[in-house]
């Protein structure tokens, strides 16, 4: 997979996240953050799939990244992390697997024919994939709270470096040296 294609997918992931954010009435000041988080999640998921990682693991990594970044966003924008995290992981939901499962179940209601076993196997495959991905998304979003054993995002130290502080004070110091 080339990088341009990956970036394009990330962009559409961000758009989907913003769409859901508007549906859930997320405050306008948070929409850019949601776009960024959706982009990050999709980039992580699709680049891992590009390296032939299993789709469940890829979705899990994407959702965990979104969860971790949402804590930082919550600190910065003074809002609960879930309002950033939930719209941003929705682009990772396996819509096409769920749809194929649905089609499979409908064709399973037909008479038992020659390729019944084939359809059954495919349906179960798609269904379990969809279920496990949704579960992985839920765990991924909850990961920062689970591993720090904190209830409120305010008590969690942001795992990401604070770039602004680095740019102003320490740069001046470095110049003086």
């Amino acid at each position: 997979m080339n990088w341009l294609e990956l970036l394009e997918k990330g962009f559409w992931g961000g758009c989907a996240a913003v769409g859901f954010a508007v549906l859930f009435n997320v405050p306008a000041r948070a929409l850019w953050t949601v776009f960024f988080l959706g982009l990050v999640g999709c980039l992580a998921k699709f680049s891992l799939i590009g390296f032939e990682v299993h789709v469940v693991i890829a979705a899990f990594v994407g959702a965990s990244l979104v969860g971790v970044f949402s804590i930082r966003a919550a600190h910065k924008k003074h809002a609960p992390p879930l309002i950033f995290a939930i719209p941003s992981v929705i682009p990772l939901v396996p819509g096409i697997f769920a749809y194929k499962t649905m089609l499979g179940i409908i064709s399973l209601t037909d008479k038992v024919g020659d390729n019944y076993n084939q359809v059954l196997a495919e349906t179960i495959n798609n269904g379990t994939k969809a279920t496990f991905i949704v579960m992985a998304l839920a765990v991924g979003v909850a990961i920062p709270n689970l591993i720090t054993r904190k209830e409120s995002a305010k008590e969690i130290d942001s795992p990401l470096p604070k770039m602004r502080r680095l740019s102003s004070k320490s740069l001046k110091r470095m110049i003086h040296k």
Partner: protein
Amino acid sequence: MLYNIYFTSKKRRIYDISVTLQRLNKTTMKLQSKDEIGDLGKVLLEIGTLLMSNGASTARIRMTVDRIADSFGYHADMLITHRALTLALRDSDENQVYNNLKRTSPHGVNFKLVSGISRMSWKIVQQDWTITQINNDLKRLQALPHYPRIIVLSFVSLAGASFCRLAGGNAIEMLIAFIATFGGLFARQEILKKKFNPYIAVLVGATVSALMSGSFSIIGPDFPFEHGFATSVLYLIPGIPLIHSFTDLIEGNTLNGILRWAHGLMIAFMIALGLSISIYLYHI
């Protein structure tokens, strides 16, 4: 060593001051508590039910209500369910007790309210708000406008087109997904306005979307529409119920977790039903 003694003595002094302050606070509180506990109880129930119907997890509801009750010097115990909230509020001496039940209004996600209540709960703790202030802020938060309808429709439709692209669709399929999402969401909003059952609203939305996107299959057998068809109903997916279901289950709120899971499953079933109607009609 010396430093350590100095440090602990200083700590001790601060502790003493804070204890006396707390006692003073309690004595003043007792004078006003008869009315206060009732008002506070009402506000807490209002906040809890608002959070529940606007898309917060059980743990968040409990945390927020506990935080506010603690800041007033009371202890809150709650039974949180999908449709109603029970609250028992008492002061530290168990002299004053407030106990009540409030029904939850119909569910509809509004993260602006959830975020606003979360910010408010911190302000209550840090700036010692009175109950009137809380009530005024709650009114303000509930009056905050939603996005205009056309904005919601076009952004969600854009999300549908994006989903289509993510699933591997081309530009024509993206357009199909956009149109079908727009129509389906419009129908669902109209149905919800007329106070239909929410699951029926999902069914109508899914059916309209699937009929609109499926109608492109009539053009010809080689016309690309399948990705658009599959992704045109994705705006209905029960993302919040399913994610909160898991959060509730892992935090031990098992009953609420199962409840949300069943709710999400009902929505998913309605989407499937809408899709299958279209599949049977168009022989896809």
